[in-house]
């Protein structure tokens, strides 16, 4: 009799365990506040460039518009879809996919959650994306071009201005992965360097990762060995390693995406920036005000969304001639007088 009771209790527990999900369904709260969320690329928050600047856009929307924000980090490429779909399922009104590699993932999820907005940073819709998808792209080559002008002039003409610069006419680029936004940075940089300094040698290394700072450091060190005295990094988290290498070896680095001076104030000469923060904020604002529209937006120098950051403490060693050259390039690009190629193939590399 007692045994029967025992097994009955066990059975009851099993039933309770199995059925709990049935009754838990109602516990989700529904709020009227708009929610904006983002899934980072594998670099994650704290990359001090791309993901962080997108997140800053969300934070800005949070403080200025009072929207709820939410962020989830992708540990690997297979996390993209679950993260984006998860954010959509949690009831986010606009979900940001940060990074070109999430291209297919965000479009797949957008098609499956047609009532919510999806925005892709560095991702184009090319007219084939679902209607609820907003593609945001940048003219990285223009920012790279300006950085290239600075690097090309500093490494040769004004090498005497700082003991961080050597006599060799060599600069380097560290690339995360060879995807269009990164390639555009590099290709623009090379063209900028060669515009002011045609004989300069531009080394470049693709490290195949946005997260491996050891690889970024390794790549930078090998270029320093070959005489590079300014290294432009377009490698997300891997690039932090490149900047460290430049710091240790006492040469200049050029940051990417945001003003990376804070990473290493002595080392970072300037940064090739793109206005991820502002554009993310604008998308949220559009959704907030009910003005959002699907389709592609491309931000460039014309929109003042890409460029180079200030020289901070290095301002004194950068001569006026360099600043004039940069200003000239900006006005030329705005006037449409200079075309900058966007692919390695187009410049024969």
């Amino acid at each position: 009799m007692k045994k029967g009771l025992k097994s009955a209790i066990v059975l009851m527990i099993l039933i309770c365990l199995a059925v709990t999900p049935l009754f838990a369904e109602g516990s989700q709260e529904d709020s009227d506040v708009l929610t904006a969320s983002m899934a980072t690329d594998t670099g994650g928050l704290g990359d001090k460039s791309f993901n962080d600047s997108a997140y800053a856009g969300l934070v800005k929307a949070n403080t200025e518009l009072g929207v709820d924000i939410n962020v989830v980090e992708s540990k690997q490429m297979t996390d993209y879809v679950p993260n984006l779909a998860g954010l959509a399922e949690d009831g986010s009104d606009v979900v940001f996919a940060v990074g070109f590699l999430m291209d297919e993932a965000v479009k797949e999820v957008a098609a499956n959650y047609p009532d919510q907005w999806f925005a892709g940073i560095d991702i184009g819709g090319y007219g084939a994306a679902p209607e609820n998808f907003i593609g945001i792209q940048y003219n990285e080559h223009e920012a790279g071009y300006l950085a290239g002008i600075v690097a090309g002039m500093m490494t040769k003409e004004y090498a005497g201005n700082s003991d961080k610069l050597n006599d060799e006419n060599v600069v380097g680029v560290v690339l995360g992965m060879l995807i269009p936004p990164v390639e555009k940075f590099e290709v623009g940089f090379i063209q900028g360097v060669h515009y002011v300094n045609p004989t300069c040698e531009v080394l470049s290394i693709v490290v195949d990762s946005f997260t491996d700072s050891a690889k970024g450091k390794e790549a930078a060190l090998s270029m320093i060995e070959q005489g590079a005295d300014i290294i432009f990094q377009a490698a997300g988290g891997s690039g932090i390693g490149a900047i460290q290498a430049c710091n240790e070896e006492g040469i200049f680095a050029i940051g990417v995406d945001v003003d990376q001076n804070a990473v290493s104030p002595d080392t970072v000469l300037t940064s090739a920036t793109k206005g991820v923060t502002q554009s993310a904020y604008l998308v949220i604002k559009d959704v907030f005000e009910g003005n959002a529209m699907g389709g592609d937006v491309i931000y460039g120098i014309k929109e003042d969304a890409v460029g180079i950051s200030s020289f901070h403490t290095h301002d004194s060693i950068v001569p006026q001639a360099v600043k004039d050259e940069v200003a000239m390039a900006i006005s030329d690009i705005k006037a449409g007088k200079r075309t900058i190629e966007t692919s390695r193939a187009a410049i024969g590399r």
Partner: protein
Amino acid sequence: MNINKKIQPVITAALVLLAFIGGWSVVMGRSWGNLLILVAWIGYLVFDRIIDRQEQKESPFHTPLLNSLMLLLAIYGGVLYLGAYFWGAFLLIGALLVFSLEKRLTEGKEALAESFKKNLKNLMIPVFGFLSALVVGMIIMVATGYNPIESYAALFYGGLVKNWSVSVLNATPLIFTGLSIAFAFQAGLFNIGAEGQYFIGAMVATYLGLYLNLPPIFTILIVIIVAGSFAAAWNFVPALLKVKTGAHEVITTMMLAHTAKYLSPIFIRAFGGNPSTSNHAYVTDQILDNSFLPKFKTFLPETNYRLHIGILIAIAFAILVYYLLYKTRIGFEIRAVGQNPNAARAQGISIGKNIFRALLFSGFLAGMSGVVQVLGLDHKLFLNLSGGYGWNGISVALLASNNPIGVIFTALLWGVLDAGGQYMIRVTDTPNSIVEIIKGIVLFLIVARYIYAYLGNRMKRRRKKKNEALASMGGNA
């Protein structure tokens, strides 16, 4: 009616085939497949009755009826539950009740109570380990200033309800790698390189998926067999070295795991996106859609669109591995070699042969993990595709004490923790590392069980020795 004995297996096979076709049709979204299953079921009952009468066995009619009813309830209930139709739980409980009823009718009350007790006892250690890990996690959260109740509520609500489909998706590859490692463990081998076989399976599956253009069911079967065989072959060298030179499989399979892992970027470059249209150097092209595994959504419309039937294949393989290990001669030999090689050799069991069997089949299972992931979920190969399924499989297998059926549940537990952890970081501030900590503690406590046993034995031995010494001293005095 007189049925020749030779026809019996033919009829059985025909009924199984009918049920399989019925099941497949349901999976492909045709609900009349249920009718075929029903026909097969009734056919089985009638057939069983006829044979029974013919052989004049005295077994009562309720045995096949209840057994098959239990099976049907379990399958339907399981599929519904996995597809986030949680009322499937009632069918599962029904299956459990039918099982108990059948046991009670055939073996009596005591046997039923006995088996309940035994199963409960086996469950105690993992359940206790898990609960203690939760308590430790709670202490850590309190100490670091997070709200444990809120976090756990989010963790379990996310993992068990809200993102249940993600839990199931997470569990699917883990079941395969867990089975792979558990199977090798049973033969006393530590296939630490499941990660590598996973990549081989995934690569071959992607390659075949890109080029094989046959009707879906054939494509899927061929991909499973070929890709699985390649993954099995990946373990051939470690098995050979183990048998011929005694080189330890931990080293050899681990080395080959890294080899396979770093082959994948080369493979992806070779089969990457069309350079004229895109620049996806880090992802292969999408495989042809006739090699996609069917989705739950085709027959359960309210399920998440990503959930594929890989989980059903995984469960079927778990049952197959269980059957192989505990109900066949091969399984007996493998276990014998695992438990005591010398005794096995004395019995005339070839150790080398069984090492080969165990390692190759273990490789096949790990390869299946990659196959199912590519065919079912990703439909392409990513550069860093694996979420460490090979390594996590070790935890899953250990946690299940290498029991193939247990692996299903431990893999699901891991899947729930992962999916729930992701949900938790979306709705609370608690960092996801707490989930990893819980997993680590669970594992530690479960593995520590072996330490308890070891210490217990040691203590017993020492006490015995002491007693003997005392006895001999007493004798001298």
